[in-house]
């Protein structure tokens, strides 16, 4: 068993507002094989992503494995709506960085 960083298995890793009260994260894999491998690894689950961003499970609104697009998608509630005073990312589009280095165990 070796590990590979998520960034090396995905063609898209992004975050964006889903309305003013949520930020959604999309990881789109560069092949069905990689997608299936990540699903099987259980490295991305509701538990691991909330732990990664250090948020309580109540802030997770959705977690979806989306087969047609070979993608994993999850959404957090914001603690205050986008663009409120103190918010550093009005579009929510620079929140994905911690996902890139997630280590995925892959069967050799």
């Amino acid at each position, binding site marked *: 068993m070796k590990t590979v960083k998520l960034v090396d298995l995905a063609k*898209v890793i992004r975050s*964006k*507002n*889903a*309305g*003013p*009260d*949520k*930020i*959604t994260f*999309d990881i*789109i894999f560069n092949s069905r094989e990689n997608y299936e491998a990540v699903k099987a690894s259980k490295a991305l689950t509701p538990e691991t992503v909330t732990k*990664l*961003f*250090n*948020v309580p499970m109540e802030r997770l*609104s*959705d977690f*979806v494995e*989306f087969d*047609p*697009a*070979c*993608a994993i*998608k999850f*959404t*957090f*509630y914001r*603690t*205050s*709506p*986008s*663009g*409120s*005073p*103190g*918010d*550093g*990312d*009005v*579009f929510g589009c*620079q*929140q994905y*960085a*911690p996902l890139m280095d997630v280590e995925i165990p892959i069967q050799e």
Partner: protein
Amino acid sequence: MSKKEQLKILCPNGHLGFAPSKEESFWIGVEEKPDYYCCDSGSNDIGPTPLGADQSVSPYEWQVHDLEMLLVASRKQGVPMLIGSSGDTGSNSRVDMYVDIIKKLAEKHNIPKFKLGYFYSEVPVEYVIQKLKEGVVIEGLDGRPNLTIEEAEATDRIVAVAGVHPFMKLLDMGADVIIGGRSSDPCIFAAPALREGFPEALSYYLGKVMECASFCAEPYGAKETIIGTITHDEVRVTAMHPKQRCTVESVAAHAMYERSNPFYEHVAGGLLDMTNCSYRQYDEKTCAITGPKFIPTEGQIKIKLEGAGKIGERYIGIAGIRDPYLVANVDKVIEWAKSQVEERFKGREHQVHFHVYGKNGVMGDLEPMNNAQPHELCIVVEGIAPTKEEAYEVAMIGSRQLFYARLPEVKGTAGTAAFIIDEVFPASPAYRWTLNHVIPVNDPLELFQIHMTEAGV
């Protein structure tokens, strides 16, 4: 109306005017002779300030550029053009501005007289308060509580998000060009398809897949034209840029974009269910989609309301820190500056926020990296208070006291922060999203005022 076998709609841009539409793929698309030109021009993505302060975030010239392309092409061909969420927010003043731009462009290009329809989406705050007093429940979305009178009173501007209804009404009235107030993006495209008798599920799916233009194509490249084709059995979407394609992967992936769940899209009047969509490569640049479902709302239709309320005036200060002792103890530096703001503004309404770039300025509470060792930091100070004078002072104290931070082991006693310029800068006022709710209505048109005028020569 005779039943068409297929309908073609062109979309040049996922947010008209936000960045100018690319011309090459647009004119390639025009050659396809679409039946309609549709584009959305707004978003709640841009934060609450534009809606609250009633201003665009797109430069006027870019908005004119995109409207000009669409108007010239659609009028030359004699087919309708539909714009939703005019001028970024879809407020009444933005609709008026777009109507005015269309009239001026029509004169500039000597376009023969045509019918220019438009509708307003603003809902007076008093109207919403009255509904609450009558006992109407205005339900909160995305985990928000239901609307209270206090929260409604804290709101400066509300827009209702139109479904297909005002667009269909104006098409029925013979509009050649429609300038819409705030609208649901997919509905701008679904309206003409529905009106021409295409199935509900496919019509709304057509809108869903088209509303961001080339975002559903690959390789990535925004603001390029696509054409959507609807038949009675499927939707097809084709990239017009010579180097872009709509593939099974790119179109399926787009279903996820900017929403919390890739399977469902709520619109006024129902729910688009994409769970059983199937995708196939139709030709090199085209993906075909079948299988969406539409579940009409049972009982009263609910219309989404977006509202922004002002918090105060705002000034911004910028400071840098390089001393490793201060970098390591930046929390204490900020604590000092905050205490000085508090000392001066105690008991007076104000907010001060410190965005620390190099630490967690981008991610705030979502930042998992808490052991980074940057060699320098940038601190952006956001000062907010009821008047400009007070906001200036809050931001100024917050910034300047970074310079006078009292930490026990500071060696650099001549100043603990570096400034590009020892000033603070006026910014747009601070607003917050007060409404992200739905209101039940008896008639889906009741919140929208429809008008018809003429343009051209």
